[in-house]
């Protein structure tokens, strides 16, 4: 018995010494802990060092232009980007992003802006999901895990932005990077396949830039050197329904 005790003590000593050693090693290049750049690169996975955000400048967003919508449709294979949902009416069809026009009734001033999933920090869709299919990644992107989505559509009811759609019919010829199918809920994915591949932008932003409007900036809100972080620091920007306290990743300028 005493022998066992002796052995235990020795082991404890060894463990404690090695712990000290390990701590020393860790502390020596301590600057690394703070100096690691967390730029989004391919193959690293989602990290909470990053918060993906989008800034829409409504002054630059052209009325009647829907380049962002068609760009998204083409990239993710919904709407005009597919031949499916023939039997659904326009209210049933998928709508990952839509253009909204706001008219100030007092002045008659009309503003145009794209509306889609706002990628909330505290997403109501995730709160209400009974299966855990509605989820938020570490980098703030809100997604539907269609593998476990049962199509109950609670998230659609909970979303204040009307951002989610339900697929009512069987689909074919989906894009390889954007699986979608009957009986599941879907919404803007923040072009997560592009971000994970290191593109650093989304199809809607690319389409807007191609049109020459450059109304959408995509980037990491936590990186002080990113274009979006500098823009939100310099200009007054708004979250839609900020009163709900959801802290959206989408921000709008000029509304």
């Amino acid at each position, binding site marked *: 018995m005493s022998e066992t005790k002796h052995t235990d003590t020795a082991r404890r000593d060894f463990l404690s010494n090695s712990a000290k050693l390990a701590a020393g090693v860790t502390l020596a290049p301590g600057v690394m802990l703070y100096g690691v750049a967390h730029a989004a690169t391919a193959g690293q996975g989602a990290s909470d060092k990053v918060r993906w955000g989008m800034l829409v400048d409504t002054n630059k967003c052209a009325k009647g232009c829907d380049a962002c919508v068609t760009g998204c449709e083409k990239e993710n294979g919904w709407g005009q980007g597919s031949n499916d949902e023939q039997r659904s009416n326009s209210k049933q069809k998928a709508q990952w992003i839509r253009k909204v026009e706001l008219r100030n009734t007092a002045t008659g001033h009309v503003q145009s802006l794209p509306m889609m999933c706002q990628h909330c920090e505290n997403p109501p869709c995730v709160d209400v999901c009974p299966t855990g299919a509605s989820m938020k*990644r*570490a*980098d703030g992107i809100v997604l539907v895990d269609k593998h476990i989505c049962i199509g109950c559509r609670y998230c659609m009811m909970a979303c204040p932005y009307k951002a989610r759609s339900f697929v009512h019919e069987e689909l074919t010829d989906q*894009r*390889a990077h954007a*699986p*979608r199918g009957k009986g599941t809920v879907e919404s803007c994915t923040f072009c997560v*396949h592009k971000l*994970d591949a290191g593109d650093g932008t989304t199809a809607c932003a690319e389409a807007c830039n191609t049109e020459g409007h450059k109304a959408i900036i995509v980037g990491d809100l936590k990186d002080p050197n990113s274009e979006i972080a500098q823009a939100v620091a310099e200009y007054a920007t708004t979250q839609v329904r900020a009163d709900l306290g959801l802290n959206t990743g989408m921000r709008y300028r000029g509304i």
Partner: protein
Amino acid sequence: MKRLSKLLSVLPALLALTLSAPAGAAGTEGGLGPNIPAPVKGEQCVEDTGEMRKNHMKYLKGHRNEALREGNRSGKYSLKECLECHVPPAETAQASRSEGEHFCKSCHQYAAVRVDCFECHATRPEKSAMFHPLVTPGMQTLKDVHQPDSAALLNNLAENQNNTGAIQ
């Protein structure tokens, strides 16, 4: 009872026969086993053939959770990677919409397995996978050198080169 035990003793052998039929040969011949099309490209799957036959679903499920929830899409076990090698892209002459000729579906139909992958996922790759990791430059070089298309010779060479990184 005796007859049953005799039958049971034959069953494993029969199963082994069915499952060990080479994919390429089974694609052209009728008879026992599913009509599995030969792979479009690549000489070697991401794991041993036997391992993939038995456990491909486990690899796929692990990758799916990692890719969707963790954002780590670098794994080699994605469904997209399967299709890259096993299903011809849409624009090629090999492409066929017939369900029976789809690599995954043909076997699943045979085994009466109902999987929901293709209710959402694309059934074929969007473009040619010439740059698939399994078709590495080393592999291409080997192919060029030994033009007389001897598959056996090529496989032997590939096996010999395995440690030097010809096939990854």
